[in-house]
């Protein structure tokens, strides 16, 4: 299967990072046309018609989100969410590193459509190289008059600031991102009000992912119809998919949405090592419920197909587990991540992630009973939908799915590990008791 490179076209060229290199490939022509010749509403309509869905995880229609911002003269903001921190996701890193100007052009055009005068790129602090690249690119764009005051003679202004985070997964959550950008601890806010109405500094704010905004110049340049020529009816366009884990060639591959998942994993990423088989995979980053090979490999890779299968496309990050990977250990890794990253504001998430880790540790130590697996499952159910943001849900969904789909493996893990732990032996002895009692009566 070939890749379909729209966002990553020419990405192999190191000159693309510079303004001159980007302009040689036709860059910023769309910005000039949009600012000089188009009304904001025309741009917005093009984005709405394109059906572009947010690439950060939720998959909400980008044009629709932008249209929620109130009209009129007021301070409005645009935030580019570049806080990519979800295990399995590394596509935004690639896009920013290889083609920073495409993102800047996208931000400028989206800001025009949304009427925002101030834009921010919130990039995770770990992405130091990419932030340096963006800093240099933003400086070049200011120099060339694509940012700042009176952009390309249009009387429109836009300030763009690259803001580095400092290491917190929660800041990828849009309202926590706003708090972090306002200089506070990154705690999520209660919604509503949604950021489109009351966001950064209390003003209407449009928040979009790096990949979403990188699509904007392509859509405005070629039209919504062209964009809809790629992908499926409900998931138009291409997607940069991060494939990692137990595959031969982990990496970012840009494909049309709706391609067979099997081809993504086997053709592009090279499939599992010799003699191994795909056992399960996360289709959309560590927060998506895992799919077994039988469930997932033959599905088209699209928002709707993954949702129908009870999982989600999320940020478009596939983590493949082959038959050597222990699912209970993978569940524990997943839970530990969310436990560490929980901001602690909401009790179900703070306590739920904590206890899930403790219970899964007992499972892999052989100190649990099968009943504990029911408790693990019920804890997950009590987290979902009960917090301000979806961080807790992001642990509950995959862990819940693993316990449900691989229950036998969890029980076998407990039984196999029980012999290695004194506490496990005692529990195993007690577990044996009802049978003995049953025989006596």
């Amino acid at each position, binding site marked *: 299967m070939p*890749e379909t490179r729209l966002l990553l076209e020419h990405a192999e060229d190191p000159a693309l990072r510079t303004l001159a290199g980007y302009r040689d490939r036709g860059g910023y022509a769309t910005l000039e046309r949009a600012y000089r010749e188009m009304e904001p509403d025309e741009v917005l309509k093009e984005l709405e018609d394109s059906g572009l869905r947010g690439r950060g995880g939720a998959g909400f229609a980008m044009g629709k989100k932008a249209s929620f911002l109130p009209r009129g003269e007021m301070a409005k903001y645009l935030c580019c969410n570049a806080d990519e*921190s979800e295990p399995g996701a590394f596509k935004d890193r690639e896009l920013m590193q290889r083609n920073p100007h495409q993102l800047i052009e996208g931000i400028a055009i989206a800001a025009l459509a949304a009427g925002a005068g101030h834009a921010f790129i919130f990039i995770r602090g770990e992405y130091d190289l990419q932030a340096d690249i963006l800093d240099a690119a933003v400086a070049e764009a200011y120099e060339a008059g694509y940012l700042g005051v009176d952009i390309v003679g249009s009387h429109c202004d836009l300030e763009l600031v690259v803001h580095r985070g*400092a290491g917190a997964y929660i800041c990828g959550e849009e309202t926590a991102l706003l708090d972090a950008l306002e200089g506070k601890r*990154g705690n999520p806010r209660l919604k509503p009000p949604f950021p489109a109405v009351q966001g950064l500094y209390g003003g209407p704010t449009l928040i979009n992912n790096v990949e979403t905004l990188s699509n904007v110049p392509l859509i405005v340049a070629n039209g919504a119809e062209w964009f809809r020529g790629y992908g499926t009816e409900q998931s138009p366009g291409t997607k940069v998919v*991060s494939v990692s*884990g137990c595959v031969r060639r*982990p*990496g970012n591959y840009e494909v049309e949405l709706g391609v067979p998942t099997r081809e993504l994993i086997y053709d592009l990423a090279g499939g599992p090592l010799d003699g191994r088989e795909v056992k399960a995979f996360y289709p959309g980053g560590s927060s998506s419920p895992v799919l077994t090979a039988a469930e997932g490999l033959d599905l088209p890779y699209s928002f709707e197909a993954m949702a129908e299968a009870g999982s989600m496309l999320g940020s478009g990050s596939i983590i493949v587990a082959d038959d050597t990977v222990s699912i209970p250990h993978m569940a524990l890794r997943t839970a530990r*991540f969310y436990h560490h990253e929980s901001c602690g504001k909401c009790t179900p998430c703070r306590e739920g992630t904590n206890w899930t880790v403790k219970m899964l540790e007992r499972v892999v130590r052989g100190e649990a009973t099968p009943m504990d697996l029911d408790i693990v499952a019920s804890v997950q159910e009590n987290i979902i939908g009960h917090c301000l943001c979806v961080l807790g849900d992001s642990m509950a969904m995959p862990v819940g799915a693993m316990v449900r789909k691989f229950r036998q493996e969890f029980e076998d893990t407990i039984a196999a590990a029980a012999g290695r732990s004194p506490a496990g032996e005692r529990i195993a002895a007690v577990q044996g008791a009802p049978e003995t009692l049953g025989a006596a009566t």
Partner: protein
Amino acid sequence: MSELPIDRAVSEGRVPDRSPERVPELHEVDCPPELKEHIEALMGRYPDRHSASIPALWAVQRRYGWCTPEGIRRAAAVMRVTPAYLESVASFYDLLHTAPVGEHRIHVCTNISCWMRGGDELLDAFVAAAEGEDVFVTGFECLGACDIAPMASIDERYYGPLEEEDAAAAIEQLLAGSDVLPEKALEKRPLAGDATGASQRNRNGGAPDA
């Protein structure tokens, strides 16, 4: 009735035996002029000066190696906020250190994709290689580079995929001040699809014009 004596719990942390510190005055903190000007410039980039808190703490950390209490007081005086405010921010974020760390920092990813490919063993190798050196090694949550798993961030730059023996070599190069693992730097890595020469098509439907 006499008041019962209350034993205050002995704690490593700060004992609240006094009122919270107010906003320090600039003349009380002896802030280096370059740091002051830098933080002032940072505040000027935002509609609200508080937004500069994370960038200001980065500046403090770059200057003093970590977010020292004195450094935080200096930044607080420039920003006109209380030191406690900046401390609350610094203690929230993993990359801002509120205790001394070594001159060099190595973050080894131990999350799902790296774990599958030997991240735990790599962390052990780095810990062993850094023994007795002024190098801060820690396991870290996903660094967003699962394509080069197992990987590490060494002084803010990404390297991978790493073998266990790379750990000792990296620390040696780091301490000698030479280029660290030049052939494993993420920056020099081609796109996954280009490395294999897999077929591609561009927006015209054809092969890319190189």
